[in-house]
């Protein structure tokens, strides 16, 4: 008995020791005299006060690290502020989900550009900022000369990591590497008929037809700007213009970069960065908790609250452009649910409680209830849409209007023909959130008396059923604007004249929507174009050929020391010059 007590005590001591060895802050920002994680004129004042002995000294006030706090430190801090001395930003370790694994680092090869851009090596002519607005990056702007001719003006004074200048020749070289027929993604740039240098810092792009998303297509990291020096083997030796320069990599495992001291955008704060690639989400969360990494992307929902509870860690999230929604089969076919009736579709839309889906299936952290196709962070979203708030009474009223009521008091609604209202929902299991979400929706629809069956299929098996029209509703997930342009999703899903498979699946057809979308595609004035899309979205939400459930949120965990980190909703930009380790 005594022995057991002894064991118990030893156990307690061991666990206490384990707890005591939890991660502690280590890096120091020398120059941040007042320890507010920033280096600015306040620190200069602070050091001066220390020299005058008004304030007590701190270790981080010793900016030049000579173990003495004196006027030299004041000068040193001023030089850091003026970007004449490198910022003591430290080293960052981050764990990502996917990385370059195809034995090449060439941005023009398939999707490798995504990974080398995230590492801060490459930049594009235009980009989407953290508000999803199209902004110039290596360009300064553009002029549209005619419907098919665009002049792009380039930033001057930019140099590549190898010292060669960034100019019109480099742009032509970079874009022609993509439009080359041997490039496996060249057909995505079919709209470009030619690109020529029209001066040292101007290039002229001619498109085959009027194509409004021309500028947007230049934000894809596929068209990253590379040095025109043909001697460089971009497969193993990336040379870009970004804030970080390539250092080393192990395919499938990690990629390291160092600060670009000559970055055109000014002082890059981090000294070096290592990105590790781990596909298992629990492992990524554990690496963050252990302090192995400072930033972890793609946290698993169940771990989010544990990480939030840790005082040294923080979780940030932002809506992404990934939408989870229902396809609705509006084809009036006898024997199937009467979804050709708008009232029935609207009723189902009212019966779905999106808040509950997010709170239970996504543990309250993985998404935001949707009102329309686009999330509010996307500039093309129609902010006036109210969407469908949960309202069972309204749903039942609409159904009664359509002749669907519970005639025999068995808690199941009957169609006007006297049969039970049955509804089949199909979905696939590739994404973790699909099954739990659809199960919540199933129970919500059963609450108002619809007899729902859910079928889980493989991702190609479901496509066959969709193609054959063999479904009532189908729960799917799509990225809504891969190139940042609103046309892609709306046309493929709702334009009945364009013959996309998504529209064939819903059989939705509305002449007004068709003509609004057609006008929008060729309209070059953004405000008028948005007006067309706003009107189209309003009709679509009203008529419910698809039901929009939630927008996915990206969850990133980071150590509180990491300063200046921003999530970009299109997931293309990750490392920026503003990030650093601040303590």
């Amino acid at each position: 008995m005594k022995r057991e007590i002894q064991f118990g005590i030893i156990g307690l001591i061991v666990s206490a020791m384990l707890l005591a060895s939890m991660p502690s802050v280590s890096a120091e920002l020398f120059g941040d005299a007042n320890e507010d994680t920033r280096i600015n004129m306040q620190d200069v004042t602070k050091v001066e006060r220390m020299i005058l002995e008004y304030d007590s000294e701190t270790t981080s006030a010793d900016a030049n690290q000579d173990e003495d706090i004196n006027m030299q430190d004041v000068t040193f801090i001023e030089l850091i502020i003026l970007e004449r001395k490198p910022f003591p930003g430290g080293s960052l370790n981050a764990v990502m989900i996917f990385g370059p694994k195809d034995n090449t680092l060439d941005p023009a090869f398939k999707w490798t550009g995504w990974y080398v851009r995230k590492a801060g090596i490459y930049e594009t002519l235009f980009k989407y900022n953290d508000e999803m607005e199209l902004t110039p990056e290596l360009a300064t702007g553009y002029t549209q000369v005619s419907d098919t001719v665009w002049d792009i003006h380039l930033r001057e004074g930019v140099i590549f990591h190898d010292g060669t200048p960034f100019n019109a020749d480099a742009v032509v070289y970079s874009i022609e590497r993509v439009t080359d027929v041997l490039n496996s993604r060249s057909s995505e740039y079919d709209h470009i008929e030619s690109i020529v240098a029209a001066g040292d810092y101007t290039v002229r792009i001619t498109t085959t037809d009027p194509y409004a998303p021309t500028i947007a297509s230049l934000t894809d990291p596929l068209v990253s700007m590379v040095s025109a020096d043909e001697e460089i083997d971009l497969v193993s030796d990336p040379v870009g213009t970004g804030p970080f320069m390539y250092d080393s990599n192990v395919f499938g495992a990690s990629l390291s970069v160092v600060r670009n001291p000559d970055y055109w955008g000014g002082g890059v704060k981090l000294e070096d960065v290592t990105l590790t690639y781990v596909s298992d989400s629990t492992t990524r969360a554990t690496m963050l908790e252990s302090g192995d990494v400072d930033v972890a992307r793609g946290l698993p929902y169940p771990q989010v609250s544990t990480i939030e509870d840790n005082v040294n860690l923080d979780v940030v999230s932002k809506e992404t452009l990934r939408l989870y929604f229902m396809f609705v089969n509006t084809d009036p076919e006898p024997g199937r649910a009467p979804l050709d009736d708008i009232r029935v579709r609207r009723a189902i839309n009212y019966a779905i409680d999106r808040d509950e889906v997010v709170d239970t299936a996504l543990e309250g952290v993985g998404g935001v209830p949707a009102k329309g196709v686009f999330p509010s962070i996307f500039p093309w979203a129609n902010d006036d849409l109210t969407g469908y708030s949960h309202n069972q009474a309204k749903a039942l009223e609409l159904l009664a209007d359509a002749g669907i009521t519970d005639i025999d008091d068995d808690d199941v609604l009957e169609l006007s023909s006297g049969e039970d209202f049955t509804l089949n929902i199909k979905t696939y299991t590739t994404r973790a959130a699909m099954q739990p979400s659809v199960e919540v929706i199933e129970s919500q629809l059963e609450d108002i008396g619809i007899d729902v069956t859910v079928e889980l299929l493989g991702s190609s098996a479901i496509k066959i059923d969709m193609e054959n029209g063999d479904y009532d509703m189908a729960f799917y997930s799509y990225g809504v604007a891969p190139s940042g342009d609103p046309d892609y999703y709306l046309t493929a899903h709702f334009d009945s004249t364009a013959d996309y498979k998504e529209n064939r699946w819903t059989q939705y057809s509305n002449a007004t929507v068709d003509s609004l979308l057609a006008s929008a595609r060729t309209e070059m004035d953004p405000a008028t174009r948005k007006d067309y899309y706003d009107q189209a979205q309003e009709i679509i939400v009203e008529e419910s050929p698809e039901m929009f459930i939630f927008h996915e949120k990206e969850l990133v965990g980071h150590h509180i020391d990491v300063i200046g980190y921003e999530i970009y909703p299109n997931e293309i930009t990750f490392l920026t010059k503003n990030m650093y380790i601040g303590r």
Partner: protein
Amino acid sequence: MIDYILKRILQLIPALLLVSVVSFSIIYFAPGDPAETLCTGPDGSANPKSVEEFRIKMGLDKPLHTQYLIWLNNVLHGDFGYSYQSENPVFDHIKKAFGATFKLSVVSLIISLAISIPLGIISAIKQNSPVDVACMVGASLGVSMPNFWLGLLLMLLFGVYLHWLPVAGYGDGGDLEHILLPAITLGTGSAAITARLMRSSMLEALGQDYIQTARAKGVSERIVIGKHALKNALIPVVTMVGLNFGYLLNGSIVVETIFGWPGIGRLTVDSINMRDYMMVQGCILFVAVLFVAINLLVDISYRYIDPRIHYEAA
């Protein structure tokens, strides 16, 4: 002997053919179109035109049996094809991944032996003592504990709480720091099996007449156990260890995935996910050849360990 080896090698051919046919058809019937999967970027959309071009370029528009025959013909000419994803030779990827797996396998084998052999011997000598019971309970636990769970526990203990080792990653080309946790995870499972086998075959050896004779003529207990008993007890253990090493070399999908180790197990699973048929076929064929070859080596090694065993090519 040579005849025997030749015969065994000839027997391999139908086995490998069968493996390739089965794997080719299973992946073909698995849902998911490689052209669509591989032309889909991280943002989740595929350009229909690129998908069609890809299909034609990679010969995916041809019927299944034609695709198989083309592949087989290339393999017979020593060409394992090109990865759909990277457009690099499949064999280059396999070589690289196998290097990582080999490193991990050797370290886990060492860990496994370092645990299992002494434990097995001690349990056998102190049969039915509390030490024996503890070792065997430990071994049962080791066998039944799933790899992924043990891996996560080790990550938590050594990575999160103690901060002794990195949680995951490949480090600087698979350095010792990064290799330890996955190697321990893999090693303990096989250690448990080996320890049990070591114990039982040691017990059997200790029960033999020659041991009694040795003891009777006054040989010290150390030599009785270390020389007479151990040598004989090791024969079945060597077989086991050989086979185990074969398993390890095939790469553990689970352990390599949770620890982010770029080995052959992860390569296989990633290729399956991306529907990279060429790569999957290459991996499966490689693993099958490796496994059969190790089996053959183990069989041959019997002859050297135990001269009583003979093989005849009948």
